[in-house]
């Protein structure tokens, strides 16, 4: 057990946890920020995607000890009231079915578009390939990422 300080969505938190505790569970259970989802716990599905110092990261296999002192953005902090271009594009295309994977998809897309603001379809598919959507909303995600690219 140690005490760590992490900055989440601009707010400093001090949390007591075991060194190996993944950020995912710090967010969900310690800070009650449940928008970041648990899907596999082994970095395979992308449901738990957050931004660590601005780039996308899997929070399920990122121990708190490795994130301490760094700045984290979660879906809750991506924008004020859902107004990030990626979120708006998600609304425009009414992307979700069950919705469970979508915060991870949005976080991956938002980080990707910062690197590449005019992606081709193939680049979008490659960038999003690590995020599983069991409901199969892939085509809508692709369309929404394109729309977001045009609007950002």
């Amino acid at each position, binding site marked *: 057990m140690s005490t760590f300080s992490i900055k989440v969505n601009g707010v400093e938190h001090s949390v007591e946890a075991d060194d190996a505790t993944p950020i995912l569970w710090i967010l969900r259970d310690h800070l009650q920020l*449940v928008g970041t989802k648990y899907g596999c716990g082994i970095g395979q599905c992308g449901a738990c995607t957050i931004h660590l110092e601005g780039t996308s990261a899997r929070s399920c296999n990122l121990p708190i000890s490795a994130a301490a002192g760094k700045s984290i953005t979660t879906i809750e902090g991506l924008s004020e009231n859902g107004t990030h271009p990626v979120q708006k594009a998600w609304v425009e295309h*009414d992307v979700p079915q069950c919705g469970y994977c979508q915060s991870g998809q949005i976080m991956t897309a938002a980080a990707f578009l910062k690197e590449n603001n005019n992606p081709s379809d193939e680049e979008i598919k490659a960038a999003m390939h690590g995020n599983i959507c069991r409901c199969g909303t892939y085509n809508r995600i692709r369309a929404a990422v394109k729309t977001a690219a045009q609007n950002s």
Partner: protein
Amino acid sequence: MTKQNIDRRSFLKVSGAATGGVLFGFSWLVSCQNEVQAEIIPELEMPEQWFSLNGYIKIGDNGVVTIMAPNPEIGQNVKTSMPMIVAEELDADWNKVVVEQAPLDPEKFPRQVAGGSQSIRQSWEGLRKAGATAKAMLVAAAAEKWGVDAATLKTEKGHIINANGEKIHYGEVATAASQLEVPEDAPLKDPKDFTIIGQSKKNVDLKDIITGEPLFGLDTKVEGMKYAVVLRPPAFGQKLQSVDDAAAKALTGVESVLQFGDKVAVLANSTWAAMQGKKALTAVWTEDTPLESTTYHDEELAKLLTAKTEAVRHDGNVDRAFAEADEIVERVYESPFLPHNCMEPMNFFAHVTDEKVLLDGPIQTPQWTRQRVADLLEREAEQVEVKMTRMGGGFGRRLYGDFALEAAEVSKLAKAPVQLVFSREDDMSAGTYRMAIKYKIKAAIKDKKITAYHLTEAAINSNMYGLIPNFFPAGAIENYRVDNAKMESNITTGAWRAPYTNFLAFAEQSFFDELSEKMEVDAVQLRLDLLENAKKNKEDERMQWSPDRMQECIKLVAEKAGWSTPKEGVFQGLSAYYSHNTHVAEIAEVVMKENRPVVTKVYCAVDCGIVVNPEAAKNQIEGGIIDGVGHAMFGDLAFNNGIPSATNFDKFRLIRHQEAPEIEVFFIQNNVDPTGLGEPSLPPAGGAIANAIYKATGKRFYKQPFVQEMDVLG
């Protein structure tokens, strides 16, 4: 067709309760101002008072309307589309509607189940009546207020308008309306007057989904709640002999370890600590029943295909037709087990106290689960309250409330509120799997006609049910027979999105493709001809599908895909299948890339009657196709001594972005009562891609997943 009627008593009871009384607003209501496309706009202003007109509808004094979403939402859009139906008949302003998820309340809501793609079909009439009845009460109250005949009043977007053009909103007469008699026969709209049904409305939870608000079962947080993770026998057939929990108990965060039956629950102050605690348990397992492996299932199922079986339907005489045939074609199709792999692993919240039992979480069958929990705890069902969260997928897995029963049992033992969580590994290894199945199909061809069709199913634990043996080609081929056989297994099996047909459709539609080639008839033409034959049996009550509607779907998809004008380097495959009361035809396109077939596109024509929420309906069709393609290509779960071959997504391959084909969906336009869309586009997908891959490569697939067979293509 079963029609569900709203129980009039419950109408009266609810409006009676509201008479003179007032219901207060809730701050957590979901706002759904859907006209706005790319803009997220502020929440609706909540009224000070709500007036309940029936179980589905509350009208606020400011004109805002709450509509209850009665059924569990698993991603099939019923939380949006069912309230749309109520709003339509109520003539509500959809921009002033808030949707609230109803708890389990069988007295108010018939059939609160998410299963079989039946929510819209079976509730269509009841939802319409709920809206129409409330509207009639509001109109009657307005008529009284103005001292005019109700027949002179019109309604529009949450307002009542009189002959002088004066206009009041529903909130202004809600209190008076709530005290009126519930009318018997409020008229329903003519579908041509629909203004909400048939217009795309956004998912009512959309904003909460994209901003990460708590919505799902796993998002439940309750004061004093313990997280519980359960150790279960690692292999089917094993039972617990003993467990050493010392190491688990020594971990920080772990609060207690409880044994129940053959399972051990670790309770902790965080999910992670509970998961670590479970890993720290050392258990000794013994064999209870024989441990089974896939090789054993394969042998047994193969034997069943040749054993003597009982016919579940036999028209004409298939044996005679085979004896007289010019040619006999016989093929065997094989499928593996499949886990459901809902994106949100199984979980449930339970709080068992002496007074009552509270259950809250993702469940497709709240009523059945309530009864089972009541039986387990030896309580009355009325003592068990069930609330429903949004679900991160269902696919049939959440029909089985095993996780809710476990949560209740653990809460009772722990005397605490408990959130029971499956890790992904638990989810994949304590499944209620789609069983492995084999189909043998045998057909007789004589004088270039199919004269007999004989299907034999060999399945694990249970066989196809209901009307499935009467689906196409029953009625289309004179001599027709279906036989069922099964073996028992200790591996738990159950419904998996489009039960049986999820694989049967692939077998059948691949088989017909092969027959069309042998008979030298175009694949589209062969299906149309067979459907033409089936028309003479239309009166047979076992035939609940329509040859005419299926023909229309096939013609439409063939036209849209350009079936008759082949494209250079593009190979097409057809598949058409009726299931869950909806008719679907699909054409898949495959191109060769680096010597391997790649599915690039699927065209799909659907007849589901009236399309309630078109964009969401398309989303369902797309999802079903991607699911069908994905599992046909990659889905595989084998067993080795009772242990599943994959327990997480590193070993179990699900379809991902780069493998998802483009999809175009076309709906047949008609005014037939609507049917469901959660399942019907899945069954045809496997056959469509298999038939296209055959054209591209000359190789037919008889076994799923195709990816294993593709390796032989190099």
